């Protein structure tokens, strides 16, 4: 009974095993990215960035059909271009960076949907927007796992400058370091993770598994490394439960996985050990000092 529900799908189907490994890798790399996105106050900009992958992926789809390398490369280039263009617009005009990100992503979404509809069907569009777990083949698995490896090694390498650039950019500048280099290195890693995620989760949902566990973790931990350690298992648990539910109920995997990540967020908001509803309600009496 338990075996049938929890183990059999993975024992019997190769695509479920691949999806499981892919989500494990995605959880580990993505949650570290998510923690930094929150600390840089870039949650919404991250969302805009994820949407901006669409025209690139769509262009890859137009030229190469449902081919992983074409769509991934297109998505990556589109994401990095959006980040760079928004940064440049913000620097050379009085426009704030969040506004320029919003402008860029609306343009990207419209363009992307239009390009997909030039050649593909409504099903193709749905797959690109919301992901298709069946699409996770060996090549996709290699992409996701390499991304996770590169993300962890990359973040470990630029950890100190990135942290200082977050909380005291002026100090870094006074030390003669160009903080924007680390900003864009980080954004590239973020885009890479969204590209890795969109096969299984879709461009609209890819950020969910990156961001939601990180937000949830901020209710439990109070340092960068501990937040990441808390976020990764929550991400993986959402993916595992989400995969099983979507398999048994025949639902699209992306939204189900993201909804379970939302449950972790809601649970943490209510029960977390710091700044949560419980923490507020359970200590009505102030301390002596």
């Amino acid at each position, binding site marked *: 009974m338990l075996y049938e529900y929890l183990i059999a799908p993975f024992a019997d189907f190769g695509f479920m095993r691949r999806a499981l490994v892919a989500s494990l890798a995605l959880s580990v790399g993505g949650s570290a990215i998510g923690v930094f996105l929150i600390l840089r106050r870039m949650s919404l900009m991250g969302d805009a960035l994820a949407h901006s992958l669409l025209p690139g992926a769509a262009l890859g789809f137009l030229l190469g059909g449902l081919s992983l390398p074409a769509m991934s490369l297109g998505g990556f280039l589109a994401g990095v271009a959006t980040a760079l263009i928004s940064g440049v617009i913000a620097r050379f005009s009085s426009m704030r960076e969040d506004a320029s990100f919003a402008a860029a992503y609306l343009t990207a979404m419209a363009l992307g949907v239009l390009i997909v509809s030039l050649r593909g069907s409504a099903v193709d569009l749905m797959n690109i927007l919301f992901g298709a777990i069946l699409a996770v083949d060996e090549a996709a698995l290699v992409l996701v796992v390499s991304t996770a490896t590169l993300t962890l090694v990359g973040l470990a390498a630029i950890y100190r*400058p990135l942290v200082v650039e*977050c909380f*005291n950019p002026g*100090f870094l500048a006074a*030390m003669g370091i160009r903080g924007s280099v680390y900003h864009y290195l980080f954004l590239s890693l973020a885009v890479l993770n969204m590209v890795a995620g969109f096969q299984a989760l879709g461009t609209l949902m890819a950020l969910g598994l990156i961001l939601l566990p990180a937000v949830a973790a901020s209710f439990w931990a*109070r*340092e960068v490394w501990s937040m990441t350690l808390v976020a990764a298992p929550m991400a993986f648990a959402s993916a595992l439960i989400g995969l099983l539910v979507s398999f048994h109920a025949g639902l699209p995997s992306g939204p189900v996985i993201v909804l379970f990540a939302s449950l972790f967020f809601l649970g943490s908001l209510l029960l977390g050990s710091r700044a949560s509803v419980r923490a507020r309600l359970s200590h009505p009496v102030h301390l002596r000092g």
Partner: protein
Amino acid sequence: MNAALRLVNLTVSYDRHPAVHHVSAEIPAAEMTAIVGPNGAGKSTLLKALLGLAPHIEGRIETTAKRIAYLPQQAEIDRSFPISVFDTVLLGRWSRFGGFGAAKHVDIHDAQHAIESVGLSGFERRPIDTLSVGQFQRVLFARLLLQDADLVLLDEPFAAIDSKTVNDLMAVIQRWRAEQRTVIAVLHDLDQVRRDFPNALLMARELVDAGPTARVLSAENLLRARAMAEAWDEHADACDVPMKLTA
């Protein structure tokens, strides 16, 4: 006079409007100098220019300082960021270990010592978002101590800080002076400047006067500074004071 810093016809502008306009002055070495002036007088901009962080500079800055330490205004730091007091202070040794190297025993020992000398023993593992404004300023001073600089720039070090903390931090500054370091501080409390700072530079975009504090902070000079700060012309013509054009 042995100058730590010489400003030669320095102009710093944002969007072509000068925030610091044709300032020439000398700042003595191993001495404490206060930069004084009304809001918008270009004091913080001048410090940024000294650090090489100002966007557009004309004129020259000559300095003999090898290492410069800088205390920013607190608003420039994200105090909600999850980082501990100890890690923040240890960053003062950036010039030793950079972005990628490891901190040595001596750095860790010195950081501990710096935290003690600003009166924050026991706070090492506390995240900075639990500190008061005054305690956080002590943290930043400990970081300055670790930087071991021969020129220390302080931007409004005592804004919104209680008198006990001001006294403790002033003692740190006096120690720097005793160690032959040059200290330049942007300050608003004129009584404190008269009491503690032998030299002053009074500016309102342009230089009003620089030299011994008693002379610089005369009633007449202060009045002039205020009048100059209030004259702001959105549609000003191009400045015709001669200056070598830079691209």
